[in-house]
């Protein structure tokens, strides 16, 4: 091969060039040749992408949603906080794996199989109105989150753990990624929502101030633009092997008016369940600035 001058560039210079590109372009460039693929998947390049600027270790990269993973969802919106009805556990699988955990044992270890009720969870009463849900790719792990309390079940320890929470508002679409919990909270006024991203880990949930607010300049006003944003866990180990997961932010209905803006998402509905997002979720040309995948180093 007649060597292109691009091969003469040192690795760090190549990294500098490619890190200036939007994520979708970086991904497309992996198809150019083996050398590019190697360069753009190297740990040092991924580190560069994720590490600029320094902590918190989450970065908004792109909102190009991958097809939804098999998900296990706990949904528990009970309409009346005074006389709570039974929140239900809903399990949803898009893949072939059944999310049913292995049978737990012990008096305080209720099993959360698909049809089971969260009522069997000893702490559900203390939660009051359960307003949030968690998606976990791991079928034996559940998190129920409200502004006052968090309830966590791990298949490995086979018991429910109850934590007090101190979120500023009802959390919205919390997701569980590894042991990291991410949720959106409205910190605005009753008249104007202002969504912020909060995070903590399962282990720090025990501390008195577990939640930290994540804000980054380059995210811009993505949450404001999206009106009612929602977090969706991407497929781990796909785009960013080193980080292990992606998190996608979607607007509630994933609809924008595309008549007057470059950032129009068109009429592609991805809202509602994950089922309609199967594989062909549109990548939105020109919306890199409002796009967001979070990766962790």
């Amino acid at each position, binding site marked *: 091969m007649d060597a292109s001058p691009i091969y003469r560039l040192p690795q760090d210079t190549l990294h500098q060039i490619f890190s200036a590109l939007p994520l979708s372009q970086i991904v497309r460039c992996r198809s*150019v040749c083996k050398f590019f*693929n190697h360069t753009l998947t190297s740990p040092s390049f991924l580190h560069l992408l994720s590490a600029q600027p320094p902590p918190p270790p989450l970065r908004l990269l792109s909102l190009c949603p991958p097809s939804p993973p098999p998900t296990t969802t706990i949904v528990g919106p009970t309409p009346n906080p005074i006389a709570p009805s039974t929140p239900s556990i809903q399990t949803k699988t898009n893949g072939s794996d059944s999310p049913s955990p292995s049978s737990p044992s012990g008096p305080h270890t209720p099993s959360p199989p698909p049809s089971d009720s969260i009522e069997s969870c000893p702490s559900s009463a203390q939660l009051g109105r359960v307003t949030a849900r968690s998606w976990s790719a791991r079928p034996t792990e559940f998190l129920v989150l409200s502004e006052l309390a968090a309830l966590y079940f791990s298949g490995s320890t086979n018991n429910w753990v109850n934590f007090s929470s101190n979120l500023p508002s009802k959390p919205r679409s919390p997701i569980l990624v590894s042991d990291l919990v991410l949720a959106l909270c409205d910190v605005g006024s009753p008249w104007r929502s202002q969504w912020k991203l909060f995070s903590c880990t399962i282990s720090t949930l025990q501390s008195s101030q577990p939640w930290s607010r994540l804000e980054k300049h380059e995210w811009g006003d993505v949450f404001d633009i999206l009106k009612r944003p929602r977090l969706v866990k991407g497929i781990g180990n796909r785009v960013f092997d080193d980080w292990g997961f992606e998190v996608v932010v979607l607007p509630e209905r994933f609809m924008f008016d595309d008549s007057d803006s470059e950032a129009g998402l068109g009429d592609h509905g991805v809202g509602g369940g994950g089922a309609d997002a199967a594989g062909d979720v549109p990548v939105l040309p020109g919306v890199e600035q409002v796009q967001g995948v979070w990766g962790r180093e």
Partner: protein
Amino acid sequence: MASAPENEKNASAPEKKTLTLKSMINNEEFVVDEHVALQSVTIKNMVDSDCAGDVIPVPTISGEILALVIEYCKNHANPSASEDDLKKADAGIVAKDIYTLIDLVLAANFLDIKGLLEVTSQKIADSIKDLPHQDVREIFGVENDYTPEEEAAVRAEHDWAFEGFP
């Protein structure tokens, strides 16, 4: 003769110290003010450690590229240049074909001139932005060394990024 050194001092102060940079590719020489050349960390290190002779040889950088580098350094050494002026001047310097840009980014890397490295890298990135990977190949003159199966596999990993692309 107390006046002679005095004169010399007066003469040298406004004249400033100069350095000569010599491209080892085509032996072109450039005489530049020291403070201009010192924007290159590489040259600064050489001068600081007294490694720099009268003529500083610059390997692997052609006279054409070296001239661009020096133009950049001159612009940025001018304290009265406004931010806007500098931006315009930078844009002029990097308004080149991709091969010149790659040589320039190599030179900026070798001479360790951060600002030039950044604008050139950005310009190269801009030149492939929003393009399908086939065009990127062409622009960089890179040959596709994937088998069709391999290429399809790499692409299938992230099909979403190819939406709207061939």
